[in-house]
């Protein structure tokens, strides 16, 4: 009896262990595959050159720059708005406030909305609605400048996509600031805003930073929302203004892997591009993990 029990026990441990191993193994397989496929093509000049010969040769410089610009604009817009909203939710709104409850509900809902739906919104709202309005206002409706997919609209769409991530993680960070510290400041005659500015924000800074980085990393790897809000297949020049289209790493991978004339011939470029994107998002995640670890350590 006892023997049978032990055998089943070992089996249970074995099976669950194997499932865990499968998860780890799948990551290793993906990474090894991509690095093996991309290593030969990858070089410094791959990062600094434009695509050549109908994108069958050359590098991915414009795509890197495009991704970088997109991420920067997205961050500059999304992180401050999200962080301030989080401050509102945790510091100003009472838990009974209808407005705060509505924001929370909306944020939760937004977090579950598929990325492609954000793309639709970007197209319907930014490109067609706002863009057309701007063209009408700025150029009398004759020109077509803003009412088309571009860097600005893609970045703003992405900012919205990352908004829930920012709000949730910043709010969490702010709530982790001990109540005693707020009380200390208020009992000294500090006003609410002074307390937020001098006590709450400095003490949740690491958390805010982590949230920002996680949001950036999520946004940097996401392609679906920019499919039709601004990413371009190939551009001979870098985007010169916000109303220009741009090349983008993830989109480049998608295009090269599915649309290029000779998929085999560009295989090396595809792998190497994927490797670069993977490296970028992993480094961002890694920084976020380290920061979070530090934060937790500090709190204990």
């Amino acid at each position: 009896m006892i023997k049978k029990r032990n055998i089943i026990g070992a089996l249970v441990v074995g099976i669950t262990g194997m499932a865990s191993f499968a998860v780890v193994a799948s990551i290793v397989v993906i990474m090894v595959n991509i690095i093996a496929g991309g290593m030969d093509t990858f070089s410094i000049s791959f990062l600094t050159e434009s695509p050549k010969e109908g994108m069958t040769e050359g590098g991915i410089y414009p795509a890197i720059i495009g991704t970088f610009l997109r991420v920067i604009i997205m961050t500059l817009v999304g992180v401050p708005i999200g962080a301030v909203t989080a401050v509102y939710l945790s510091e100003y709104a009472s838990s009974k406030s209808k407005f705060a409850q509505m924001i929370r509900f909306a944020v939760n809902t937004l977090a579950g909305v598929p990325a492609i739906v954000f793309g639709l919104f970007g197209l319907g709202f930014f490109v067609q609605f706002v863009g057309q309005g701007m063209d009408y206002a700025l150029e009398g409706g004759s020109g077509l400048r803003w009412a088309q997919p571009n860097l600005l609209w893609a970045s703003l769409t992405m900012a919205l996509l990352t908004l829930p991530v920012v709000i949730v993680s910043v709010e969490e960070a702010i709530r982790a600031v001990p109540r005693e510290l707020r009380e200390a400041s208020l009992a000294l005659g500090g006003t609410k805003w002074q307390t937020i500015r001098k006590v709450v924000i400095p003490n949740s800074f690491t958390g805010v930073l982590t949230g920002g980085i996680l949001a950036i990393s999520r946004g940097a790897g996401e392609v679906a929302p920019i499919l039709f809000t601004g990413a371009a297949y190939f551009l001979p020049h870098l985007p010169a203004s916000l109303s220009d289209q741009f090349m983008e790493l993830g989109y480049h991978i998608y295009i090269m892997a599915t649309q290029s004339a000779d998929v085999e011939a560009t295989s090396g470029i595809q792998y190497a591009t994927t490797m670069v994107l993977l490296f970028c998002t992993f480094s961002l995640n890694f920084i976020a993990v380290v920061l979070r670890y530090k934060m937790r350590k500090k709190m204990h």
Partner: protein
Amino acid sequence: MENGQIRIQVKSLNLWYGEKQALENISLDILTNQVTALIGPSGCGKSTFLRALNRMNDLIENVRTEGEVLFEGINIYDKSVDAVELRKKVGMIFQKSNPFPKSIYENVAYGPKIYGIRDKKSLDEIVEKSLRQAALWDEVKDDLSKSGLSISGGQQQRLCIARALAVDPEVILMDEPASALDPIATSKIEELIFELKKQYTIVIVTHNMQQAARVSDYTAFFYMGELVEYDITRKIFTTPSIKHTEEYVTGRFG
């Protein structure tokens, strides 16, 4: 009650947390430059009462207050009163020492800075004066840039006292300031209270009967949200007029 100048006059104060009444019809006078101790079993409302004196309860949702707390002749619950201004004059020390994760210097300078004092020399003076008043100066004067969290628990609590003194309050409320400290640190805090009452009016909540007897001039005994008895400390601990008080101070319950 003996004569003395009244600093805070509480008149029929009632307080509710949501539906639950936490303070019932409390009236009492707190006298200038005296130490008033609030005693009673946990949950009796003594801490709530203390926090009602500088409107710290405002920060808790669902708290409703009725009655009057007169400070300098003004009801602090009047609509025209600014709670921030009030707290500048009625400071508070908490049960758990709560220095900011900043340097010792910055901790003490926090209050003056938010009042707009920027001048380095004035700040230095305030910091030194406050730390001296809190009997901490000699221990930390060479480490002012060290983190406020790096010193011992007793020192941290005295740092919090120094921080409160730096904004030049008139009344200091202490919520079991020594409950987390060892006996030596506790006695240092008690000595300090004795010194401070020369300049400040002090209200202290304590669990520790001996501490109340040692440091206070007046003692108020709270039970189930009501003020049972309020008198000169000596009288409360020797010949209380209410039986309930006697049972509590002699340790028969609580």
